[in-house]
């Protein structure tokens, strides 16, 4: 990966503290600085409670730092309104969660099509693209299935297809294989690596699993809210 490319996401001395000023105050992230360039694949590992998910939430604009600055393509996001952050999340980020988080009342096709709705994409185009994405993740013919009718591996495939709906530049995956068996784990990882490569997307994977972490080209290790190791593969 070309580390000289201008950064896609940059964290500058970012800290995140929950329950500031209370007896339950928790410093989840401590002055973290991090630069991620376009097309990079990054794994984030570390023990439970070390701040991995907090880091991912800050990268994906789901949370705001208590101090420090997060920049997207050189643009500080701390000053963005809630609406602007939502739009950036909608168009720039694809989230993949450990528990899939598909909407239970929507079919697989509707789940994938959902993020396209606010962008006023014509319905026919939305459905065409959603069908194409489901086919791409190997779920051709399962468009009308509801989440409860899908296996765990299939649900995560739908979640990957949904994450790709608006062709985002960044994919953020939080323990994407945490609830899958080994066969499905490998399949999902193959899929993530493929879509990252095909689309030249940036991939950030939070994981406990060394097998998952090994699929990335850069490995961050966290402990007590700080990045203690940052290794790039040659």
């Amino acid at each position, binding site marked *: 990966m070309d580390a000289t490319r201008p950064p896609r996401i940059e964290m500058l001395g970012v800290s995140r503290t929950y329950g500031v000023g209370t007896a339950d105050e928790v410093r989840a992230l401590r002055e973290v600085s991090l630069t991620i360039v376009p097309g990079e694949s990054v794994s984030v590992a570390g023990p439970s409670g070390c701040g991995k998910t907090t880091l991912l939430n800050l990268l994906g604009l789901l949370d705001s730092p208590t101090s420090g600055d997060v920049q997207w393509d050189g643009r500080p996001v701390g000053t963005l309104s809630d609406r602007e952050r939502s739009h950036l999340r*909608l168009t720039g980020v694809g989230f993949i969660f450990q528990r899939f*988080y598909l909407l*239970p009342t929507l079919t697989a096709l509707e789940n994938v099509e959902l993020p396209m709705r606010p962008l006023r994409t014509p319905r026919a185009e939305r459905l065409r693209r959603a069908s194409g994405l489901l086919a791409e993740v190997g779920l051709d013919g399962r468009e009308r299935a509801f989440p409860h009718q899908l296996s765990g591996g299939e649900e995560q495939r739908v979640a990957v297809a949904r994450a790709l709906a608006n062709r985002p530049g960044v994919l953020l995956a939080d323990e994407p294989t945490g609830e899958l068996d080994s066969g499905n784990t490998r399949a999902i990882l193959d899929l993530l690596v493929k879509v990252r490569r095909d689309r030249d997307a940036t991939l950030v994977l939070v994981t406990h699993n060394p097998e998952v972490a090994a699929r990335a080209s850069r490995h961050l290790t966290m402990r007590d809210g700080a990045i203690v190791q940052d290794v790039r593969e040659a």
Partner: protein
Amino acid sequence: MRRFGRGGRLRHFRLQWVLAVAAIAAAVALPVVLISVGGGVSAHELANLENAGYQIVVSAGGSHGISGAHSLAHEIESVGSVTVACPILSVAIDAYNSTASTASMTPVLAEGVIPEEFTPTLGPTESPLFPSPLPLGDPTDSVHYANGSYSGPASYDVLVSTPLAGGYGIHVGQSIVLSPSTNKSLGVAYNVTGLFGVPPSILGPTGAFAVLLPLSDLQVLTGYGPRASASVFDAADTIEVAVTGSVSVNPTALAHVRDEVQALVPLYSVSSLTQEAAQLQAASGVLTGFYLALSSVGLSVGLIFLALVLLRRVETDRRSIAIRRALGLPGRSIAFGILGEGAAIAAAGALAGTLAGYVVVESLARWATSTVQETASLAVFDPTTLAAIALGVVALSALAGAAAVRAALRVPVTEALR
């Protein structure tokens, strides 16, 4: 297809939905019933006014307050454009069937009129109900009246309403005793010379028991005629005034004639039916407002229930909302979803309430007691009004959904996704 993984949750949502729709339906049914029945009665009365054969009414405060009715009617007829003026005296008296083996008494409404003046004041719906000319002896009622001396021979003719004749077994050619009190010995025997029908009324059958006789006869019978025994001389309750056709449809010309009549009778009230119709419409508008205010109590309860249902939905859908927010769906799309659901519940409630109101009114019109039945049968279901009520309820659902929208937009995304 089962849309939820957990059937219990789905049933729970459905129950909430159904209860919210029922609450709003109950709240909507009340104004639908009140406004449609109230509006129907008003419309019926307005139609009666518009169909009357007279256009101006002279009246006095209290009962039988007009004096010198015969001569006053002649004076009013001298006003240009006035075609006829008919004094009417309305008194509750008792009727006895003189042919029955045991004399039974019935309270009836007696109306005294000048026969030839009365017929032109009948509207198109009333006119066919009366024989023409009225078979009440002297058509001008001047012979018996005899310039206020009441020394001329009385006709002793009376017309009996068909409900009274039917209920009492009276036929034309028979006689009936009319008495100003329950003492039959004070009564006078009258010849039944004809029958008249009764227009549909919301007063029930009692109001249909009526007799019609010459004005001077009723004045003498009840003591509201001769100067010596009456507080008012030659009394009447109203004088109904008919004008020429061209004036009757011209409000300005009609007002001019009314002013001229008023000048003749400065101590009495003179109003045109146009005015009365306007007053009735104004009163109807006030009543509608009152009905809506009354209904707003029920509607408030329904909308509070809706607000609670929507808040509960936000509570149970926290994760779904957080997922949507995490995916970047804007707050407004989540707000529209909640408001849309509120509007759908409100619309379903409004529709169900309108149907329930319609069914209630139709049921009353078919199976209620006679007076209620008659009133309900007059109900008018005005699509504009019903649509306005439904739209108002749907619009108010946005208010009910505001708290839920606020709560949804405050769902902490990262916390809800843990």
